[in-house]
């Protein structure tokens, strides 16, 4: 009992998520800076930024609903943190694993996006409203390919739990190659979900001054930032669990492998962020619906056929 509480609270649960999110944010910012020929921040910068933001004064917009305005950051952070408990970190076994947790994780990860929308809409400000609607528009663009990309490996594995999928592919590592298109789609859609360049139209600084969160300040903004950073960690962990399921059976070695895998995923995402211009929201929609969705559908059909064909 105590052991499982410690697992949830300390390792590999909340505390680890917090620390590792700061590490990944540092990696993200540092590598991004080095790619741009800048020096980049020191290692403690993400933590320092967070502490500073938490200590700042909170300003509530006059015509916003106060309770909703204050509750949204907490709700979105909670959803992301809950999702992390289903990702395998130490060994193949996640803290909580049950049949269907992959679907639960994907839905939990939709909550921050909806919170962004509500936050922007509730702020009653022209920039944040436009940002909110762009957030929602983008969500309609990426959600379908994202779900299909994550569910395709599940179909082949015949399991709806991340741990189960990992176990299936760990036993048959070559099957991972079948899911390569889905892996690429998952990377791109995650980039879009996290609102990072080139899919950062919802928070385009030079157009709508930061988008949905423009009225947020102080600790509420800090929670939203924490959400974004943890979301990066959770997405990287889930991608590592579903698409890169290589395990040795030894807990510590698997943990090291987990770190390598998530680092690799984050590095690819930084590369995407650094090498492209922000595309317009209509171009985003077009790209996701006319390029990624058909590929995702094809992947799903292929996996369904293989599931029957391979006699699994």
């Amino acid at each position: 009992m105590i052991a499982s509480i410690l697992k949830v609270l300390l390792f590999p649960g909340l505390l680890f998520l917090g620390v590792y999110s700061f590490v990944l944010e540092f990696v993200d910012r540092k590598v991004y800076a080095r790619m741009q020929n800048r020096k980049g921040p020191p290692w403690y910068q993400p933590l320092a930024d967070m502490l500073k933001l938490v200590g700042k004064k909170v300003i509530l917009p006059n015509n916003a609903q106060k309770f909703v305005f204050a509750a949204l950051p907490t709700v979105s952070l909670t959803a992301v943190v809950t999702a992390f408990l289903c990702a395998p970190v130490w060994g193949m076994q996640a803290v909580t694993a049950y049949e269907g947790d992959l679907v639960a994780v994907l839905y939990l990860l939709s909550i921050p996006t909806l919170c962004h929308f509500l936050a922007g809409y509730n702020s009653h400000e022209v920039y944040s409203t436009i940002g909110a609607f762009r957030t929602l528009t983008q969500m309609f663009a990426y959600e379908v390919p994202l779900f299909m990309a994550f569910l395709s490996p599940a179909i082949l594995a015949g399991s709806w739990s991340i741990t189960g999928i990992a176990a299936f592919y760990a036993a048959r590592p070559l099957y991972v190659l079948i899911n390569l298109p889905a892996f690429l789609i998952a990377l791109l859609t995650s980039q879009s979900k996290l609102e990072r360049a080139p899919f950062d139209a919802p928070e385009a600084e030079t157009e709508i001054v930061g988008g949905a969160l423009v009225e947020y300040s102080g600790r509420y903004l800090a929670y939203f930032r924490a959400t974004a950073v943890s979301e990066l960690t959770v997405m990287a962990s889930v991608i590592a669990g579903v698409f890169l399921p290589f395990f040795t059976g030894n807990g510590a070695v698997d943990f090291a492998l987990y770190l390598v895998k998530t680092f690799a995923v984050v590095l690819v995402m930084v590369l995407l962020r650094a090498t492209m211009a922000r595309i317009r929201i209509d171009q985003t929609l077009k790209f996701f619906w006319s390029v990624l969705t058909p590929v995702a559908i094809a992947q799903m059909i292929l996996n369904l056929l293989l599931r029957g064909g391979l006699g699994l």
Partner: protein
Amino acid sequence: MSERNDHKVVLPIGPQHPSLKEPGSFKITLDGEKVERAVVEIGYNHRGIEKACESRNYTQDLYIIERVCGICSHAHTSCFCQAFEDMAGLEVPRRAYYIRGIVGELERLHSHLLWLGVASHEIGFDTLFMYTWRDRELVLDLLAQIGGNRVNYGVNTFGGVRRDLEADLMQDILHVCDQLEEKIKYYADLATTETTLIARLKGIGVLTPEDVRHFSAVGPVARAAGILDDIRVVEPYGVYKEIPVNAVTDDHCDVYGRTLVRVKEMLESIRLIRVMIREIPEGPISVRAPRKLPAGETLRRVEAPRGENIHYIRSNGSDMPDRVRVRAPSEANWHGMSYMLEGFQLADVPIIIAAIDPCYSCTDRAVSLSSGRDEQIASWDQLRLFGIEQYKKNGIDPGSIAIRPF
């Protein structure tokens, strides 16, 4: 929130906004993401430069004119000095012309690199922004070596230049040119291959040749529509009388075309600097200039990085000008702005504004709308005929200028 009854949103961009480098106001009426109407309001940065010039003597004016623009300070002083030298009848040494030319082309390099950085920042491509601004430092360091300052180098003076270029400094310039050429070629390659960049720039902010003539747009905006209005080519001055410039034009008519024009102009600038350094003659760098100008008036044009720069001086014979008029290139490009913005998306607004390389403080003027005593209204045709006559007096036949038919 400024929402109207018909559910259309008026989005204010400016006077303070992250995409604007100087204060200016754009009221964008949105229909969804589409810009339905754009109202441009400038005038937040009026500094009274012209009036300040009229209450000081010419030598003091030179310092003010140097500060008209924070980027193309040399183009403004070049223009002002040429106007002064014209009226005073000064014979400027050839070496001075070459030094002016070299500094002018270096300035064009740093201005266009700055623009490329700003433009890529507007479309969210911060990596290119950091790269170009890093490379711009090379040019700024050179300019600091030449004039002692990174922006207002104070090279020009009446009757020549104030700073000579020594042999090792010229070697440094050539060295930097080699470094820059490689990088700019890389950017040119990037501009023609990077998918997201092209997707964001192509087909937006369209200004066809007819529109360019209608709105009197100048500089890279006009050249991107195939209209060759490079003053260095159509009305050569100074060093460009001896070293011809290869004109750069483009047929895209949009923001993408303006990008290509600027990138190609940078390569041309590097070529010009190399030729100038090879051909630079020995000799004095300035002649003594008078303090007073004879009564009269003159108007000179110089190609600044942003386009045609016009200075007008009217003298009443004293050591102070009676009237100074500075027409910075951005002033000509503002007129088409609303037209360029309307019909495109909100996401395109910052880059369309940035594509004319706007300089707000150079542009803002106080305009009095009350009519003067002897007011005269000339039609376009009369003005055109008058212009052709004036040019023929100066020995230039405008009939030889290639005008693109449409």
